[in-house]
């Protein structure tokens, strides 16, 4: 068995234990269902406020748009923060980083493994949220069988981008104190605004649209909506591109972001090693 696979598998097991082992299995399952459903109600509340302010007659397309976007944003918040905080928690809280880091494994692969459990938790949450929306809130979802391969490819690419961004932040966190976890909360906030999660890019000013188009997640949300909710007719600035072209944008930007993540991670690790900060503990 290769070292990479063994590392990934063990780290994923550890991540899963940490995510799920804090309570009884039945309570964990209940929590996993209730949490995303409760999140869906927040969306309903947001929609009601929007309607009250702007369109008293309502707009089912707009609701479906924001609902699908927010459902997939669960991946962003969970995976990004989950990846980022691996280094921080191992270093500051569990104080295990020195023992894991000096073991004969790739720490980069270890982080990916830990993040895998976050993906598993997020997949469940996204599925529950979408199901709840389709069953009780009138969100029109339809994934054609022919579109399944493209949906899977785009989902894998989207998750890969999230892992890449999470590892970028992780590389930075090698050098920063523990209170910088705000970074992993602030960055998703930017994505929330600029990547067409809640509202289409067309609402943003030109410079905002330019930022959105530079972030691969924008393409991920766009293609995902087109595939699983094809009836949404909300005007986005990407309407002129067919799904394959958008997938191409996603592939190119994903590769770019992954290369960037390796670079930033390596630079952060290099300077942390040089300064003896790999296993530092900080307080504030």
């Amino acid at each position, binding site marked *: 068995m290769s070292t990479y696979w063994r590392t990934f598998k*063990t780290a994923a097991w550890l991540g899963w234990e940490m995510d799920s*082992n804090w309570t009884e299995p039945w309570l964990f399952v209940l929590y996993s269902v209730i949490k995303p459903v409760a999140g869906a109600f927040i969306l309903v509340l947001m929609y009601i406020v929007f309607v009250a302010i702007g369109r008293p007659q309502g707009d089912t397309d707009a609701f479906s748009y924001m609902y699908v976007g927010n459902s997939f944003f669960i991946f962003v918040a969970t995976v990004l923060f989950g990846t980022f905080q691996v280094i921080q928690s191992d270093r500051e809280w569990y104080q*295990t980083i020195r023992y894991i880091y*000096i*073991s*004969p494994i790739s720490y980069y692969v270890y982080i990916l493994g830990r993040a895998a459990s976050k993906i598993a938790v997020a997949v469940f949450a996204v599925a529950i949220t979408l199901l709840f929306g389709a069953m009780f809130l009138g969100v029109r979802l339809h994934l054609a069988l022919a579109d399944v391969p493209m949906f899977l490819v785009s989902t894998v690419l989207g998750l890969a981008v999230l892992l890449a961004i999470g590892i970028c932040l992780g590389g930075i966190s090698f050098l920063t104190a523990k209170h910088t976890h705000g970074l992993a909360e602030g960055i998703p906030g930017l994505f929330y605004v600029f990547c067409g999660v809640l509202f289409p890019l067309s609402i943003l000013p030109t410079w905002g649209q330019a930022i959105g188009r530079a972030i691969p997640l924008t393409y991920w949300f766009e293609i995902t909506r087109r595939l699983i909710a094809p009836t949404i007719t909300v005007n986005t600035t990407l309407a002129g591109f067919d799904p394959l072209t958008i997938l191409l944008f996603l592939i190119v930007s994903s590769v770019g972001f992954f290369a960037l993540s390796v670079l930033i991670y390596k630079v952060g690790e290099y300077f942390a090693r040089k300064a003896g900060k790999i296993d530092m503990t900080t307080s504030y």
Partner: protein
Amino acid sequence: MVSGGETSGYGLLTARENIWMFSQFYGVPSKVSKGRIDELMHIFGLWDKRNAKVRMLSTGQRQKMNMIRGFVTDPDILFLDEPTLGLDVNAARVIREYVTNWVRGQKGKTVLLTTHYMAEADQMCDRIAIIDKGKILACDTPENLKRMIRTETTFRLEVDAIRDLTTFSTMQGVKNFSHKDDIAKNRSFLTFILEDEGPVAEILSTITLQGKKVHSLQKSEPTLEDVFISMVGRGFE
């Protein structure tokens, strides 16, 4: 590597799971690993706590778990950094005995131990390096290190708490000295490394001239701590 005085370990995992996980990072086959863990848990007296979550373990139990983590991979070289720091007497004894037997009972095994406990170093180590401010001042067997200052004489005194120690450092024949205060008892404990017994009378008169009483005076065989004082010029801080 195993460090003492740490809280390392994932609190949500059991002691057994924690150790097993680390063994996987070192490529120990799972079945072999589990067998070794069980054996080591019996040896270290942690068997009863094998399924206890790490967060429920006491400091001593956690340190034993960390020691098992170090040994479960059957390393050729093991770094132990203050492995008995903060442990009760019994737990420290178990760890010292196991480490000593492990390294002496097998060929090709090395333990690099860093410690402030000189008695521990004396008991466990074949060779000792005395390091001060990043420099190795001496590196030899415990016996040879002690022999280095055997030509010198070590005296230990227990006196009323004494403040003015400057006289001793300039006194002829005093190679080095250290002191510890026991504030509760209002006593000072002085250790002198002397070239010969000549300065003893002068030391005693210096103390009594300060109005302090000498409670005990003892000439002793040099210990590793004396070697350290002799070389570094002070006791442990």
